[in-house]
């Protein structure tokens, strides 16, 4: 296989970004000259444009006033701006991140434990199998309105929505991982005198880890989706709430700012998972290098 230099790859990536952003920014202006070339969708009313999104970002984050003047940290303008809006971009991001974190962690832990227990017990997995299949067939997001109804418009309903989409994903991966453990490993451990608990700790968990990690990157996006959907349905704060508010005002730039922030949050969280995986599964990396 031909190997591409890093510089070439980065060059292409920069070029693609430049083309997309340019079309987004200036594409609609071509409509006056070439109306047949430019679709309606490029109308900034629907999708805004990069420069407007950037300006809107500065306003929503209280870095500038609505007139475009810089809000100074020192004369207190920045602080006053933040105080005026309880759901400013910073607070919204923080609250969405917090709920995503709790939904993700509880989902991963409970999905992992349940997957391990059922994966190691033929009896339990036989008993629960039809229920799991049934519940798994429900599109989890369809439960979000019920969850908001039950848990209110506070943080708890977002965490629960997030949990419910994450838990099954992690559960099924852990379950499969625990089922497919090489019997040679468990036999070897048993013959060296390992107790059932020691086998679980030293053989089952490490060999299931690769499966669990395979589910964590999608799980983090799922957790974020769960929180945003919960916020769409009913919330006082959060990025989902920001999107709903901007939509009500017909403000595409406001929605786009929220979307870009979500994208960045997603990228950062995935990068963290990826780092953790590279460290914990370093024994796998060596194999692939062989």
């Amino acid at each position, binding site marked *: 296989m031909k190997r591409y230099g890093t510089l070439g790859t980065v060059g292409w990536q920069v070029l693609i970004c430049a083309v997309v952003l340019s079309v987004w920014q200036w594409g609609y202006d071509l409509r006056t000259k070439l109306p047949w070339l430019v679709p309606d969708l490029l109308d900034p009313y629907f999708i805004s444009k990069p420069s407007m999104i950037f300006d809107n970002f500065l306003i929503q984050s209280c870095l500038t006033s609505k007139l475009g003047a810089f809000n100074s940290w020192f004369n207190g303008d920045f602080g006053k701006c933040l105080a005026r809006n309880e759901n400013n971009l910073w607070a919204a991001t923080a609250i969405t991140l917090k709920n995503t974190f709790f939904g993700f962690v509880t989902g991963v832990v409970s999905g992992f434990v349940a997957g391990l227990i059922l994966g190691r017990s033929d009896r339990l997995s036989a008993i629960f199998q039809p229920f799991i299949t049934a519940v798994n067939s429900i599109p989890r997001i369809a439960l979000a309105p019920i969850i908001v109804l039950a848990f209110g418009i506070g943080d708890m309903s977002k965490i629960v929505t997030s949990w419910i989409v994450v838990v099954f994903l992690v559960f099924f991966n852990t379950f499969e991982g625990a089922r497919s453990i*090489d019997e*040679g*490993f468990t*036999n*070897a*451990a*048993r*013959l*060296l*005198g*390992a107790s059932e608990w*020691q086998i679980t700790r*030293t*053989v089952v968990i*490490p*060999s299931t*880890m690769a499966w669990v990690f395979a589910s964590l990157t999608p799980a983090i996006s799922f957790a974020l989706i769960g929180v945003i959907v919960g916020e769409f349905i009913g919330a006082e704060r959060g990025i989902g709430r920001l999107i709903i508010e901007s939509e009500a005002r017909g403000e595409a730039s406001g929605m786009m700012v929220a979307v870009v922030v979500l994208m960045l949050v997603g990228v950062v969280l995935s990068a963290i998972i990826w780092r953790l995986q590279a460290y914990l*599964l370093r*024994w*796998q990396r*060596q*194999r692939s290098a*062989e």
Partner: protein
Amino acid sequence: MSALETSATVSPRASADRRVEVKGLSKSFQLAKTTIEAVRDVTFDVRRGEFVALLGPSGSGKSTVLNMIASLIRPTGGEILIDGKRVAAGKATPNVGYVFQRDTLFPWRTVGDNIGYGLELSGVPAHERKERIAECVAQAGLKGFENAYPSALSGGMRQRAALMRTLIVEPQILLMDEPFGALDTHTKIDMHEVLLRIWEREQQTVLFVTHDLGEALTLADRIILFSARPGRIKDMFEVDFARPRDAVKVRETPHYAELFQHIWHSLGEEFVKGRSA
């Protein structure tokens, strides 16, 4: 002819001397709707410190017998006594070490941590563990690889590490299921040397499953020959080469050739039967 043909009945040795007693052992598997008889009425004893090879073609039930002794599978009939105590299936027997055909080193542990696994299980403190791992690593010629993962090692090195993982807990009975079957001839003979030196020093009781007659002759005090399926004991041969043995030189003696010829014929019949079965 020095090959002593003993029948499969109980030997007249003193009972205290018997480490492993296998009595009327049989095993049948249910495969789809047919019953496969893997082992039929196998009876033999192993003396303390004796090196016994279970030799036979594949499908002769020798590995099944070993796995029953290791308590990995439950016999259909008969019983196994180790030091006079009945082996219970599914429960590890203390003092028994097992080396698999395929090294079952844990890929997520470094070589050193793999070797020290047994000590970790029994709660040996870290500093003492470290010392004993270092000894074993040196003995297995794996110096410098303690912190490597098994995937970085060659087949022979991996099997040496697996052997050390078993030996570090100092088992008095060693069960080995074609442990060197996957290695090339040269590496295999190196491993014979390693094993012979360890056995001469530690004097474990060894049960060694193989289909390689040369290997059985090099290592064992006694060869138990298994017939093609269903596995029964066909014959037993005493292998009386002087100890300590040299894994290479022992093969050059006329007596080796003589024994080889004698057993080869008997073994060959079973290979033919095994193929047609």
